[in-house]
């Protein structure tokens, strides 16, 4: 078990001096051996607060956490003997807006920043940058460019590279594909998929896109008004009951496949999870 939430709540004091619970009584176990988890929920449902507990940027105001063996609760910050910074190497968190992160003169230097903070030497960090730049779909020429001259999608990838270079065991990404064009989106999702399948790392993706959830996720967490209301199989998530209950958007491929099955005498043996599978399944069915 890599990350454990034991009845964790987090209370903020808002601008109006009133307290409010951003997350409440969270019970959650995340394994470190290659899960691909989608975290969904409306804006304000507590998703960001939840993931910021996973790399100890925030600590519970109630309850306890266990992150790779390190126990974290509301008193941990005051203790001098527990250092929370090392956790952030093992649990990498990529924020939604690369502008909050990119600051160095070159992309290479920016990617090196994370590893260097965790003790990598100049050469080691340079090597990591060179390895990782291709993984995110950019070529070496990007290393010498200024991060501020990149397009939105390129900035996104550079910021993801900066976290991947730290070689975290758990990778959390907040809306990694928003603002990317379809090609970029698919390429990046394939990268995360590979990290999860080949390197056996756990990847958690916060997304609003049900299509991504349906195609890639092996496990879905649904946040609603600060509580975790669903933790399980993505296919079962999109049952009619759940969709009505939580006002979810149905993934387009699922909706179309179901409509086709209902309206026409066509049946799919395996539910197609993406466009290509749907197209192929139709071709087969109509032969």
């Amino acid at each position, binding site marked *: 078990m890599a990350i454990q939430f034991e009845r964790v709540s987090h209370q903020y004091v808002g601008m109006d001096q009133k307290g409010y619970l951003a997350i409440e009584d969270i019970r959650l176990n995340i394994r470190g051996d290659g899960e691909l988890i989608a975290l969904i929920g409306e804006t304000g449902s507590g998703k960001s607060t939840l993931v910021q507990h996973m790399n100890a940027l925030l600590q519970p105001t109630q309850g306890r956490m266990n992150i790779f063996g390190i126990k974290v609760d509301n008193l941990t910050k005051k203790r001098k003997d527990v250092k929370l910074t090392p956790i952030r190497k093992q649990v990498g*968190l990529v924020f939604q807006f690369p*502008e909050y992160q990119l600051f160095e003169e070159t992309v290479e230097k920016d990617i090196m920043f994370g590893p260097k903070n965790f003790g990598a030497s100049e050469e080691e960090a340079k090597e990591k940058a060179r390895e990782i730049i291709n993984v995110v779909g950019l070529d070496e020429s990007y290393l010498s460019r200024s991060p501020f001259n990149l397009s939105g999608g390129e900035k996104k990838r550079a910021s993801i590279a900066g976290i991947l270079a730290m070689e975290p065991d758990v990778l959390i990404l907040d809306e990694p594909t928003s603002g990317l064009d379809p090609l970029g989106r698919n390429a990046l999702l394939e990268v995360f998929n590979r990290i999860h399948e080949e390197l056996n790392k756990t990847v958690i993706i916060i997304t609003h896109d049900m299509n991504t959830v349906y195609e890639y996720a092996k496990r879905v967490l649904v946040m609603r008004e600060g509580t975790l209301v669903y933790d399980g199989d993505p296919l079962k998530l999109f049952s009619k009951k759940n969709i009505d209950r939580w006002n979810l958007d149905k993934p387009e491929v699922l909706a179309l496949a179901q409509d086709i099955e209902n309206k026409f005498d066509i049946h799919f043996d395996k539910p197609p999870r993406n466009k290509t599978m749907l197209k192929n399944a139709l071709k087969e069915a109509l032969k």
Partner: protein
Amino acid sequence: MKNIVIGRYIPGNSFLYSMDPRAKIITLLILMIGVFLLDSIVFMLVSIGLIALLLLAGRISIKRVYLGLRPLMFLLIFTFTFQILFNDQGDELYAASTHFSLLTVGLLFVLIVLWLKTKQYIRFKLLYFLLFVVMGFAVLINIDTGLVFATPTFSVHQEGVNMALFIMLRLIIIVTLSTILTITTKPTDLNLGLERVLKPLSLVKINAEEIAMIISIALRYIPTLLDEANKIMLAQASRGVDFNEGKMKDKVMQVVSLLVPMFIISFKRSDELANAMEARSFAPGQPRTKLHELFWHRLDTLALIMALGYFTFAVLTRVLT
């Protein structure tokens, strides 16, 4: 979630809150100039009495005013001490020899360490500090055994005491008056008032409207900037930056990793905002009508008259003595 109150505005209900901001700004100015004209401690104390009445009538909590003064405590003490120690004019009120020896210096050192270690447990920090200062002097003056290598005279003169009190009182009055203004006036109203009051500056080619617009936009973005700063710090913390620790070199890197993104975001923002403003027919330098109107009432005229009254009083105290 940051818990910041912009400016020091605290909602309330009294004539001070109902006054036109222009009137408040002008009367404040007149009062301040008046205070600077006073040259006797007695009249200073009278003025402080008047301010206390103002606070009572205006339903402003003395506690808030004290909190507004607290940051100045250091300056006040410094000025006070400086005058007491180094002003040697006037009659000598007290004199004593101080003795600097290994023993006394050592004891001073012990006192300092004792203070540093124990101050966090004490509630009335200022008094505690003063207690130690008195103990320090007591040691220096009374302990004269051992190998004494210096005996400078510590003396207090009349003028020193006078000046110390005078400067302190003046500082307190000025700060209290400004605090009253910021406590009772919303930043946006203050901005509006300033804009109108500064209009005559157009004679020296200073455009009060533009300045007010700049201030207004700055006020609008402060919460946004704070929020972004917080998010940037979280993003960099996720890459191993520890904003709480680090040597000088690390601190520089921490600041850079925070400031560069803030600047970049702000530059992009100014570009987009300027486009949006122009798209909505904003043309710098052109006249604009105003949504917010300020309404001058009898209360404001009354306040102005009373301020002028005080000013006359101050001038008279100067001229007649």
